Every structure is written in C-alpha cells, then in structure tokens.
C-alpha cells in the first residue's frame, strides 16, 4: 500500500501536555533522533528540571527558549508504514489566534487537548471554534492526564458530554474523543490497559485510519491557471500548456471546459503531470493542461465545467481573521487581495460584526478588527473573483489581504454564501 499524507494541527499550552504528546508520538514512531533527545536532556539538566522537558524539542527560537514560550507555528514530521504526518504545532495563548488559523488552514485533522482535571476551558473552546471556522474536516479531542483522575470513565464522559453540547453550535462533521495519558503513553500509540472501559482506538491508530480522501471536493471542477507554459523552441512552437494545481474536481482529457472570465468553451486535449500524461487528475495534483482550441487564457483565469461554474463576483461577504499588529482592519481602506492565483485590490465596505471567540457571541457596531480578532466583513474587489463558499471549497473560498504600504499579509478570509450578488 502506498503511504499517503495527513496534516494535523495541534494547539494548546505546555500545561495541557501538548509538547509531551507530540514528543510521545515522535518518540514512539521512532522519529525522534538520539542527538535531539540528548540535547533536550542536557538542557533540562542544566536548568535543574527533574524531568526531560519535551517542549524544548519544539521551541526552536532563542527568544522562545529564553522566555519559555512558543512564538510561532512549528512544523514536525513523522511517519508510520501507513502514513506520513505533518504536524502544525501552534501555541495556545489567546494572542496567538493568528498562528492557530495558520496551522488549521491546511489541516485535515485538529487535535484539541483537554486536561482531564480541568475539563473544558476557554482555550479548548477557542481551538474548536477556529478549527471549525477554517473548515478542518476532523476533530479529535484528546482528554489528557487521565492518570491524574484515576482513569475515571465518569470524568471522561463528563467532558465528552460538555464538549459535544458546545460542539452542537459548531459545524463539525467528525468529532472523536480519546482518553489518554501522554506522559505514560496510554492510548497514544498503544491501547491502554488502565482504561478497559474505552473501546475506541488509540490516537495514532485513529490518525492512521482516518479516511480523508472523501474530504476533498471531487465534484466541482476548479482549475486556477497558475502559469502558462510556452516553450520558445522551434519543435514546440505551437505548444501552449496551462499549469496549475487542481483546486477541486476531477479533470479528464475530452472534458468540455469553460474558461473564466472570457467564458469561452473548448475541450481538454491532454492532462500532463510530472510523471507524464494521465487519464484523470484530481486535487492536490499539480498538472499542465493543453486544450483543443487556442483561446486566450492567462494566469489568474479559472477553468471549470460549462454546467458547474463558480460565482463570479466583486461583492464578497467573508469571515476574516486579522493578523497584523501594526494597524487594525479599517473600512474604506484599500488592500491587495489574493484569491487562488489572482490578485486584485479590495475595499472593506462594512464590518458586520466581530465574533467573541470565547462566547461565540456576535459583537455589533465595531469599527475595526485588531490583531487576532475575527469578524464578518463585506468587501468590494476591483475585478471579479471566481469564488465558492469556503464551506464547499477550501481552495476557491479562501483569500488573503495584503497591506500595500507594508506588503505584509494582514488577514485570512473565508467567503460565506449569503453574498449580495
């Protein structure tokens, strides 16, 4: 069987035992190297810790080590014979919503850690909300430190009930609970003998078996043209290929396609990949498409099926997470917007409300969004964008805003359906 790829995001503070859990996954899957472990053991000793501080593995920057905090998203890798895993590891403090959004944006699974002694906290609610906002298809609630509550089924069930009640207000497709102890390894890689009442799989088996292929949108053909390949050689003078990464849908030679914004239609002549021509292609493959007829197509255009096209619009409603500390989001300011492979400029016309990420309440009458704040806005772009609601399509439903005076990426945006079309 071929090894596939699964990306998951974790969020939480050192207190939740998140670093210990990641350390355990890396160690038990033999992805931790002896020199890494030695270095962590040495530094732990130098600092007078009685135990090996596994958070030192993930805290890579000088300031982080000095201040004992995690500043940024760290990426970790491990693999088993079934899967390669990419962990986007983000700190859990309130001021780091930005990092959680970043980590969740590409994740197939979100791991939310809950300390069995403390139960649900504002932080776990926040993680669950952000994962849902970013459309992460699967969530695993790891009820950690079960060893400190005498492996109590009652405690676990209590947390499960409370979390499920909260989750009913979110649009979660798949929610799993696992009682574990990262420190002792119970239910992380091997099944716990301390909790015979739990009949689910340990965390790693769950992650190995999770079915993620059906999470991809294979229905709506969306191919944002990224690069036009035109060899300037004599033999291939007439070759014109449209290179890009398939956002969604399945493309085959012979399929009728429509090119936006021109609206012209033709047929796919061939689909080429790095390994040669293929009979079909689907996300996340990077391919080059040639067409039967020569039509004028350039970067930023979108290929789709004639009977299934994205919304073509300049007036867009979206949820945005503001990511810039230097200035808040303000109305009537023009930003650069990047959506798939298309750049335009956009003015924020209105801020409908801000979402209090702890209570999920809408706060109306706000005039700006500060760093780490999430809100619903309406914007107008200088040219039409070819969009789908983020809930239906994580590729064509997403955009970033860039401040043209600093070139910084200032917002992550998710398009919502009820657009003023």
């Amino acid at each position, binding site marked *: 069987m071929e090894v596939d790829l699964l990306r998951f995001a974790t969020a939480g503070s050192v207190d939740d035992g998140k670093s210990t859990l990641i350390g355990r996954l890396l160690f038990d899957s033999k992805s931790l190297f002896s020199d890494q472990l030695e270095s962590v053991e040495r530094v732990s000793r130098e600092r007078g810790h009685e135990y090996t501080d596994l958070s030192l593995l993930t805290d*890579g920057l000088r300031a982080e080590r000095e201040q004992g905090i995690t500043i940024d998203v760290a990426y970790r890798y491990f693999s088993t014979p079934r899967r390669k895993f990419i962990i986007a590891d983000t700190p859990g403090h309130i001021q780091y919503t930005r990092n959680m959004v970043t980590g969740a944006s590409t994740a197939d699974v979100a791991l939310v850690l809950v300390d069995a002694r403390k139960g649900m906290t504002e932080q776990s609610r926040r993680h669950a909300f952000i994962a849902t906002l970013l459309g992460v298809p699967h969530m695993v609630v790891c009820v950690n430190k079960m060893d400190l509550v005498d492996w109590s089924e009652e405690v676990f069930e209590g947390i499960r009930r409370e979390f499920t009640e909260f989750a009913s207000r979110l649009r979660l497709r798949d929610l799993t609970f696992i009682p574990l102890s990262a420190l002792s390894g119970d239910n992380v890689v091997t099944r716990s003998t301390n909790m015979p009442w739990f009949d689910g799989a340990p965390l790693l088996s769950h992650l190995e078996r999770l079915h993620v292929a059906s999470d991809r949108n294979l229905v709506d053909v969306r191919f944002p043209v990224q690069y036009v390949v035109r060899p300037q050689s004599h033999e291939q003078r007439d070759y014109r290929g449209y290179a890009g990464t398939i956002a969604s849908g399945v493309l085959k030679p012979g399929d009728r396609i429509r090119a936006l914004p021109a609206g012209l239609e033709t047929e796919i002549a061939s689909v080429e990949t790095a390994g040669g021509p293929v009979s079909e292609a689907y996300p996340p493959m990077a391919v080059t498409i040639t067409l039967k007829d020569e039509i004028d197509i350039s970067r930023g255009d979108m290929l789709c099926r004639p009977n299934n096209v994205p919304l073509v619009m300049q007036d867009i409603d979206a949820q945005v997470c503001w990511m810039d500390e230097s200035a808040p989001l303000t109305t009537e300011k023009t930003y650069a917007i990047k959506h798939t492979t298309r750049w335009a400029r956009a003015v924020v016309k209105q801020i409908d409300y801000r979402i209090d990420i702890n209570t999920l309440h809408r706060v109306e009458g706000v005039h700006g969004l500060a760093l780490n704040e999430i809100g619903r806005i309406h914007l107008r772009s200088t040219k039409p964008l070819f969009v789908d609601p983020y809930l239906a399509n994580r590729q064509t439903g997403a955009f970033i805003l860039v401040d043209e005076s600093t070139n910084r990426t200032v917002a992550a945006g998710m398009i919502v359906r009820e657009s003023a079309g």
Partner: protein
Amino acid sequence: MKGHVISQLSALEAESIHIFREVAAEMERPCLLFSGGKDSIVMLHVARKAFAPSPIPFPVMHVDTGLNFAEVIAYRDRWAAQLGLRLVVASVQDAIERGVVKEEPNGSRNRIQTPVLLEAAAREKFDALFGGGRRDEEKARAKERVFSFRDEFGQWDPKNQRPEIWSLYNGRVFSGESIRVFPLSNWTELDIWSYIDAKNIEIPSLYLAAQREVVERDGMLYAVNQFVSLKAGETSRKMSVRYRTMGDANLTAAVESYADTVAKVVEEIAAARMTERGATRGDDKVSEAAMEDRKREGYF
C-alpha cells in the same frame, strides 16, 4: 482508499511544483541555489518538471567556498550545462582575496559564505532565491516560512514573519528586499532519499558507501583528502563510509555505512537515530542557536 488519493511523495512533489510556479509567475528575478548536494539536486529535478516542456525559466547560483568536493563541483557544472542553465558562481576564495570577508580561525567558511551570497544576489538583482532547506533539519528551520521574507540586508527576523495561510503565498517585496523560498520545506531526509530512489536520479558517488581513508576527530569520521591531512599523532584507517551531507570538504564528516546503492541508503536512513546535521556537520555544533544566528545574518 483506492482512487483519488496520491502518495505522500507525489503530494510533496505537487506542493513543490506549485511553489516553483508561483515564484516564477510573481517574482521578477528568481534564482535557484544549486550546490550539487542532494537537496538542491532534488530541487532542480522538481523545478524541471514544473515548467516542462519549457526549460527552467531562471538561472542557478552556487556559493563556492573553495573547499568543495571536486566531484560535487563537476556534478554541478555538468547538470547546469545539460539543462542549458546559466550558472552564477559566487566565490568565497575570490571574496577573501578581495578583502570582502576574512578567513575564520577554525577554518570554517560556512559563516563567511553569507556576505558573498548577499553580494552576488544584489549584483544580479535576484529578488527570490530558492534554497533546499527542510524544516526537519533544525529547530530554527522548523519555524521558517516557505516564502521567507528578507530585508534589504538579507536578514531574517523570526519574530516578524508573514503569516502563511493555505497555499496563498505572498512574495511582495519593495526594491532591495527579497524572499528566500524553500520548496522542500515539508520534505524529510527520508523523503529526499526515497524520491531519488523512486525517480532514479543521478547523485555524486560520495553519497554512497565505499572504502575510504578516514581519520577520527571529536568522535566524527573525516575522509583524508586534499583539504584534510593527518595532524601529528593521528592515524588513518580504511573504512566503508558515506556522506549524508555535502558541506565543506574540510569540515564535513562521513558516517560508517555499507549502503552502496540508493535503495540501501533509504533503508539506512529509515533506521537512523541521529539527525544528519548532528551526525556530520562540525559547523552546526557551535551553539544551541548556531543556525538561527546564521539565518538572521542572511544565511540559508
């Protein structure tokens, strides 16, 4: 699981191709750093696929420390010529002679590569440099973006990185600023070797085990060559060794190995218990934050 799922290596390759195309489409003057080391070999291979049947639409550059293995330099020249690419060589030796940089007492030219790289990039007006860095290599790298913004002095500010959400990369820079791009960010050492194996990519033979004359220093094995000669009291012996990285020939250690084919290297890496830098790079052992400090100064 059948149908509509691609293997993890194909997924990594697709992600890298996407990054190459994004940079070629949006940046004015990109350039690929090509040393003849395994990561840059894979990078070049993937870049070629990204633009096929067109040639790679940017030049390649090598910061030549003057201490490189001859076979690696020959590999570099041969591949650049074969793909019809312009090769820019920034010479550290030349920079020392011009007085731009000074030789360090420990003989490492790792740190003094940086000004030479920055000088050449400025002269060529490159606004995007592809590097073969991977996040599994080192703790500071684990937190670096795929599109890593550098100011006009080539400096990296880890606390002031642009958020990178979905695959919507932001390569916008003002004049004089640049980005370093790491298309292989999410590959591990094992992925690199599995890919070389799967695609049957030619590599310098130093990567494969052979009987070589070695001397042991500080617990590491150095091959005796034109840059490494025996000091008083040292003895050398013949051992089957290979290289996991291709740094400067005077400071890159070999590891004991019997993996004389790429497939055997893959097996060995899968079972390895040391990171490649920890095992073979004298220049990374300087301090806990050695890599972070060099990156801040503009190193890769």
